[in-house]
């Protein structure tokens, strides 16, 4: 039957089983010659050859054989799975240990700073407000256009850079923007 697999949902219910065959059409007989006869035939003799998986997957007779080919040994599969999880666990532990070491170093450094110089310690502990604008910035913003003002407000230190290009599989259609220059945010 010349039915497209892609239009499965548009097919009538009786034909939704993938590749449902009808024995009521003879071999080689193209069924699309008279759609009316087709419809009548389909309703008189619905497809009843059940050797493919059911449409919603409640019965899948082909799965066991496919799995046997794909996974030649259950034991090997489980061994590989365990080894991979073990490897990931090692990486995770290493990363966590390194992070812990860095944190401890930082904490030790701050403790020593507190003992040495309390003013610097307080400065080091100050939280930075990323949206705070310095005096120089406020002065510069007075002479800026609207788009430029918006650009300054949105580019916050530490936030994701807006101009970052997302890596693509293929280069851009319009070539490389060689004249592009980064917007300089006026800093203190």
């Amino acid at each position, binding site marked *: 039957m010349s039915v497209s697999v892609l239009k499965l949902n548009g097919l009538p219910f009786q034909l939704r089983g993938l590749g449902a065959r009808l024995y009521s059409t003879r071999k080689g007989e193209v069924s699309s010659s008279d759609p009316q006869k087709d419809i009548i035939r389909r309703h008189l003799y619905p497809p009843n050859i059940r050797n493919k998986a059911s449409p919603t997957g409640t019965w899948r007779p082909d799965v066991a054989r496919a*799995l046997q080919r794909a*996974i030649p040994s259950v034991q*090997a599969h489980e*061994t*590989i799975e365990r080894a991979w999880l073990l490897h990931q666990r*090692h990486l995770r532990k290493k990363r966590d240990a390194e992070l812990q070491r860095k944190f401890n170093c930082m904490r030790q450094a701050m403790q020593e700073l507190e003992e040495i110089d309390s003013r610097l310690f307080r400065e080091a502990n100050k939280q930075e407000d990323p949206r705070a604008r310095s005096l120089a910035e406020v002065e510069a913003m007075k002479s800026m256009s609207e788009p430029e003002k918006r650009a300054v407000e949105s580019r916050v230190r530490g936030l994701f850079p807006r101009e970052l290009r997302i890596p693509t599989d293929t280069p851009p259609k319009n070539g490389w923007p060689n004249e592009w220059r980064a917007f300089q945010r006026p800093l203190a």
Partner: protein
Amino acid sequence: MLALRRVQPWAVGFAQRSATKQVALASTAVDTDGSHSQSSGEPVAPQKHQSRAIRTRRPRISLQHPREWNRPLAFGVLPAFDEALKVIKEDSMALKDEVTALEGAIAREKETPQPDQHALRVMEDRLRILEVQSEINFPQVRWKCANGMADMSKAVDRHLLEQRWRKEGALDLLMERIHQMKVVPDVLPDIHPSLDLRVNFPKVKSDAGLQATVSKTVYERVEPGVFLLPEQTVEPPKIYTTVFHPEERLYTLLMIDPDFPDETNKTFQTYLHWLQPNIPLSSVSPSSVPNLNTHTAYIPPHPQRGTNYHRYTILLLPQHSRLSIHMVAKDKRTGFDVRTFMEKHGLDKNVGGGVHMWREVWSEGVPAVYKEILKTAEPKFGRMPKADRYGDFRGKKRYV
């Protein structure tokens, strides 16, 4: 990902994955009684178009028919598998070095004049975990445990068997039956089994005719909660255990019937069928438990005619030390209180133990138990006759 190569799906193909699920309820220890502990599926008949059938019958591997482990795939067939084995081997060697270092540390700590008990306990716990982790990823170890050839003196095999009992359905089924049949609130407030207790009774040959015929030699595993015939339970069962602690501990076996009718109080009471204290069990002791009928003799279940089904419960409770318990006479078995018994002898249900239960209903085999073993008259229960409302008016003329 797995390299898709044309490999003959021989050795341990699809069959093993389904087989491990099927063997969940069977023990991996030896049940030397001819019981069919391994379920075997029939091989699928080859379809007309395929040349080879999917093998569904489990290969016959056990302690009686041992087989050596072989690599499931030869070297080079699946590079991921070879890499996996290398990773596992490296990890195991690193862990084994840690184990030797920790053992040295523990020995040194024990030699000090005042060993720190808390630190020692922490180190010993860690040692046990490391010992298991160093071997648990090896395919040969897992294969042996999955095929009934576990060595119970090794911590890793014990751990694997315990995980299998707990996670693959056997314990869940037991607890489901225990809770659904309300054994847990009725007999004990709660129980958390720590050992796998299996009960085998003779197989029924035929239940046609007045009395069912029961095999004399073939004993079959009893699924918790199923109905058995009183003819099957005349002789004491064969008890098998899988215990997960290497040291020897003492247990008390109790078999009780919480549904024994109490006529005077028009309610039910507990009947003690069997009691055997001081049973030594450890993971290296044989799984078949002997000498169980030397204390309080086994009285077979005798559900009375007219009562509903009776739940017969076997408890295996851990003891702290050797107990001396008086034998309970045959006529003093009613009115047994499990809770006070446990409190009196210091049997703590929170430490673990084993439990099993089945159900029985009156059948033609019960009168024989009353006649031969209990030597009392068989009671028959039923409803009280209703008072006749119109007794005064019967026989009298109604329309005068």
